[in-house]
């Protein structure tokens, strides 16, 4: 965990540069130029953060004020985090932030230092005066971090103390996202800091309704959903890990198909491997896109079986009707029918990690059945592929 660096603004006024001084008082009379509060954030960590629109001085220090609107850079960041490993470093400086002009009675909302988590929260607080207490979760979202314990009791207690929250507000309560309850023991936080933890809605977008209802959640605000759009947004990161294995598979198939006594024949390599490369793509698509998107529609509860069904639904028609397998021997057909739906099944099983309703015991059970099938199926398919290549070359 990175310690908070207290910037002494008396000694180095330039240190405040990212926190634009919003004071309108005359320079000489202004208390902030002579006795400015120490900044509660590492100024380097906030440099260039365009979502900061000012700063306010509090008895405990200088707190950055954040915008509740998303700029183009925030939107771009969201897209990048959805499609690439950029998400692994999309973090902000932990600590206290302000929305609007919060005072001693304003609400305190707890968030994670994954920028997307923080962004959805600050947007939901538009028009409010509030504090945001950002925990150091290593740049991981609230729910996953709570599962790992980094969005947890210890960090919340520590962050309340180092941010000197007790000096910022008169009341003694913080509002944490409900999914943070996986890592936060509300009673322990109360014991150690005096602050009561209220678990707010699952989705930040429900905060305005939650507040206007007198800090009461409806049942719908408590429920985690998993809509078709939620699932669709996850598919790029399901496909991404499959790209490299697919390229390895493609090279292997080209080499095997092109193998001849005089070396690798490219024309033969391509024509022989093409049907398998097409089936490979179909299997990836079925497991990493079709299964997540159509999740509730595909029969059976097991993700491995759902993936198998989706994979077979794509692979079988291609083999039967594309014409690419006309005159193919039984060994090749058997290998194709076995291997590719299993690839889809494996990829679909990986989606348990992104889904919002699968438990560990269930996934372990699936793996107990599925892993031996995957290994056995791969061996059978490899034998089929070898037999096919021997048949093609007239060796057997």
């Amino acid at each position, binding site marked *: 965990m990175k310690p908070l660096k207290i910037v002494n603004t008396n000694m180095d006024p330039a240190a405040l540069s990212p926190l634009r001084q919003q004071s309108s008082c005359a320079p000489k009379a202004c208390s902030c130029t002579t006795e400015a509060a120490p900044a509660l954030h590492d100024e380097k960590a906030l440099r260039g953060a365009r979502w900061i629109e000012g700063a306010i001085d509090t008895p405990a220090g200088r707190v950055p004020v954040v915008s509740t609107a998303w700029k183009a850079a925030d939107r771009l960041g969201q897209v990048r985090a959805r499609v690439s490993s950029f998400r692994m470093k999309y973090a902000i400086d932990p600590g206290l932030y302000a929305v609007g002009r919060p005072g001693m009675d304003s609400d305190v909302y707890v968030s994670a230092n994954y920028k997307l988590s923080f962004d959805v929260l600050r947007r939901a607080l538009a028009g409010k005066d509030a504090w945001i207490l950002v925990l150091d979760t290593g740049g*991981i979202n609230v729910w996953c971090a709570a599962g*790992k314990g980094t969005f947890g009791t210890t960090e919340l207690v520590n962050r309340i103390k180092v941010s000197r929250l007790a000096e910022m507000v008169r009341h003694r309560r913080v509002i944490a996202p409900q999914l943070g309850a*996986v890592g936060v023991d509300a009673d322990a936080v109360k014991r150690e800091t005096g602050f009561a933890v209220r678990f707010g809605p699952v989705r930040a977008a429900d905060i305005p309704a939650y507040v206007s209802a007198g800090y009461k959640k409806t049942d719908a605000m408590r429920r985690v959903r998993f809509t078709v759009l939620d699932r669709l947004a996850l598919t790029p990161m399901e496909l991404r890990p499959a790209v490299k294995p697919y390229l390895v598979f493609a090279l292997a198939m080209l080499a095997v198909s092109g193998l001849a006594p005089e070396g690798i024949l490219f024309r033969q390599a391509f024509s022989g491997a093409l049907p398998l490369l097409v089936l490979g793509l179909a299997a990836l698509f079925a497991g990493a896109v079709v299964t997540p998107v159509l999740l509730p529609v595909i029969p059976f509860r097991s993700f491995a079986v759902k993936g198998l069904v989706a994979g077979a639904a794509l692979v079988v028609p291609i083999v039967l009707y594309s014409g690419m397998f006309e005159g193919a021997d039984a060994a090749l057909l058997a290998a194709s029918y076995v291997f590719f739906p299993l690839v889809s099944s494996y990829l679909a099983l*990986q989606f348990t990690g992104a889904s919002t309703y699968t*438990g560990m015991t269930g996934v372990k059970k699936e793996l107990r059945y599925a892993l031996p099938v995957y290994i056995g199926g791969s061996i059978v398919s490899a034998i089929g592929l070898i037999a096919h290549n021997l048949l093609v070359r007239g060796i057997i």
Partner: protein
Amino acid sequence: MKYLKNVTTLTYTGEKCTGCGRCVDVCPHAVFAMIGGKAAVLDRDLCMECGACQRNCSAGAIAVDAGVGCASAIIRGKLTGSEPVCGCSEGGGACC
């Protein structure tokens, strides 16, 4: 959406319940409801073993073997002989 039937490790001991309602408040799948001043389990099969209820049950009435329902985490845990955890902070993983 429901996952596999009858696999969850969730156990609830009604006699210990003090009726605080925290489990109802933190469960993201409405497994619990308050009935007659005490918590009741409505549908165990909706439980995803996140562990939020157990962590916030000061009466110790709830037990669940909490963990990540994530295949790649469990496979990695098996291979390394450790508890399954998300690979997020290890840098290599592209998960949650």
